[in-house]
């Protein structure tokens, strides 16, 4: 569906993306994971026909993003990161306008359908400027859906939303991903885990890893950190945990919580819970720490740097 070959984009002397290669299949939800400035938005802007690449090609359904730009734009629904909207318009009028620009047949009906899909029935006649961030996001998403595109490209679709809205938007995207190709960018790993079939991690314009989210996590950390909270006698509880087999290290953090690391293939959580309860500790919490993106990045970029060591004499153009 999406085929990207040797895609490179320079902004002046700054290389935003460097020789990207990846594919996305029909019906796949592809996550694009990376820190700010990694080149996610640039890649998406090239795929949506907003700007041409410096070199390399990107094709959607066999159509080139530069040569067949107009056809591509008809096939792709795009939600830019900033969710640009016309503040002074009403939700309905805005969607109608965007629908007309995408040559949607029976646009009135279609707009009503989309308003229902994104759950904006009650605010359809509100001015966009009066909408909350979450609602704006939904209107933006609605705009991307209007012309029933085969491919949805969503740049940070859940950024700035509250937890309830995040959940709603994620469910919406999952539902949409069942019948079309979705490519979304995020910098939250758990989000990628929840909604993506496959994740591409990108850093400084290069792909550093590409896999299903579960595999990625296992690959990236052999050790799992678990946080334990007990009502009192923290020191002796920590001592108890330390004696359990399979635990790599135990420490007490500033909040009075005990944290232990154990090997991923050897989950010590049941043992810890049983031991603590047996000794009469009041176990309040036992939470595995999610591997956060920063760690993954540090790890991946370190690996990357190591792999690159022989060719260190050709330095990155970026500062």
């Amino acid at each position, binding site marked *: 569906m999406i085929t990207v070959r040797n895609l490179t984009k320079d*902004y002046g002397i700054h290389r935003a993306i460097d020789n990207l290669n990846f594919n996305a299949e029909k019906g796949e939800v592809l996550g694009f994971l990376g820190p700010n400035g990694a080149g996610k938005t640039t890649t998406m*802007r090239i795929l*949506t*026909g*907003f*700007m*041409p690449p410096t070199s390399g090609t990107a094709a959607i359904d066999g159509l080139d993003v530069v040569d067949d730009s*107009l*056809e591509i*734009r*008809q096939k*792709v629904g*795009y939600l*830019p990161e*900033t969710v*640009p*909207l*016309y*503040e*002074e*318009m009403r939700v309905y009028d805005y969607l109608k*306008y*965007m629908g*007309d*620009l*995408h*040559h949607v047949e029976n646009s009135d009906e279609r707009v009503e359908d989309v308003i229902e899909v994104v759950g904006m029935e009650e605010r359809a006649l509100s001015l966009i400027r009066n909408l909350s961030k979450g609602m704006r996001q939904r209107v933006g998403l609605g*705009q991307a859906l209007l012309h029933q595109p085969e491919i949805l490209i969503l740049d940070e679709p859940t950024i700035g939303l509250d937890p309830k809205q995040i959940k709603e938007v994620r469910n919406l995207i999952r539902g949409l991903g069942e019948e079309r190709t979705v490519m979304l960018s995020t910098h939250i790993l758990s989000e990628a885990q929840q909604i993506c079939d496959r994740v591409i991690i990108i850093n400084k314009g290069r792909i550093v890893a590409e896999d299903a989210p579960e595999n990625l996590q296992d690959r990236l950390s052999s050790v799992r950190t678990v946080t334990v909270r007990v009502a009192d006698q923290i020191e002796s509880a920590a001592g108890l945990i330390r004696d359990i087999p399979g635990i790599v290290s135990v420490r007490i953090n500033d909040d009075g919580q005990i944290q232990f690391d154990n090997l991923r293939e050897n989950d010590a959580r049941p043992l810890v819970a049983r031991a603590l309860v047996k000794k009469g500790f009041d176990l309040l919490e036992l939470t595995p720490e999610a591997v956060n993106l920063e760690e993954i990045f540090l790890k991946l970029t370190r690996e990357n740097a190591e792999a690159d060591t022989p060719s260190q004499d050709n330095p990155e153009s970026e500062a």
Partner: protein
Amino acid sequence: MRNIWTIAKKEYVSFFYSPIAYVAGIVVFLVLGIFFTYDLNVAILYQYPPDTTYLLDILIYPLLFLLIPILTMRTLSDENKTGTLELLLTAPVRDYELVIGKWLGTFLFFLSLVLLTAFYPLVTNVLVDPGIDQAKILANYIGIILMAGAMTGVGVWISSLFKNTFAALFASLGVLLLLWLAAAPAQFLQGNAAAFFTNLSITEHYFNSFRSGVVNLKDISYYVSLTVLALFLGTRSIESKRWR
């Protein structure tokens, strides 16, 4: 064509979302109304038929030169600033369709304002016996509308160059003033050189022909060419944004 119309329609309607449409309408009507009343009084006092052409002169300097930059200033600069340009440039719309659509919507709004001013010649026509020189007034209107079309084109082009609305306002004001004053060097020159500068000026093509009721192909093609040139430059400016 369809895209142009969609964009033009939205642009036209958007003038009514903001106070611009109402303020502009009131100002045009009020200013001309004051001069109209004055004109009628003077005409009654000295017993000569009032000439609406003088009234329309007021439309040109104080109103066209100020109003058009105000109407065009946000057409593309705002889209650029708020990021909605990204939506338009990723919609199946050609760059020139966007620019022409913006121009057409603004131009049509300006036409609506001009239509309001037709009230004065119509009233004069009733008051004066045997009526005014309708053909001449019609030529005046054709000239003003053509000039406004070219000025709107310049405004839309300038607006495409900026993100800041006021920068766009003052820049288009400046360019329009330059186009007006282009005739100034002609005073110090003779022959072809003088003719060249006179022909460059945006107002000369009105005052030397349309104003006295003459409709010339030369003047029509000046305004049409200027419009096309401005829209072409606007399209290039939008295209260039894709390469940044």
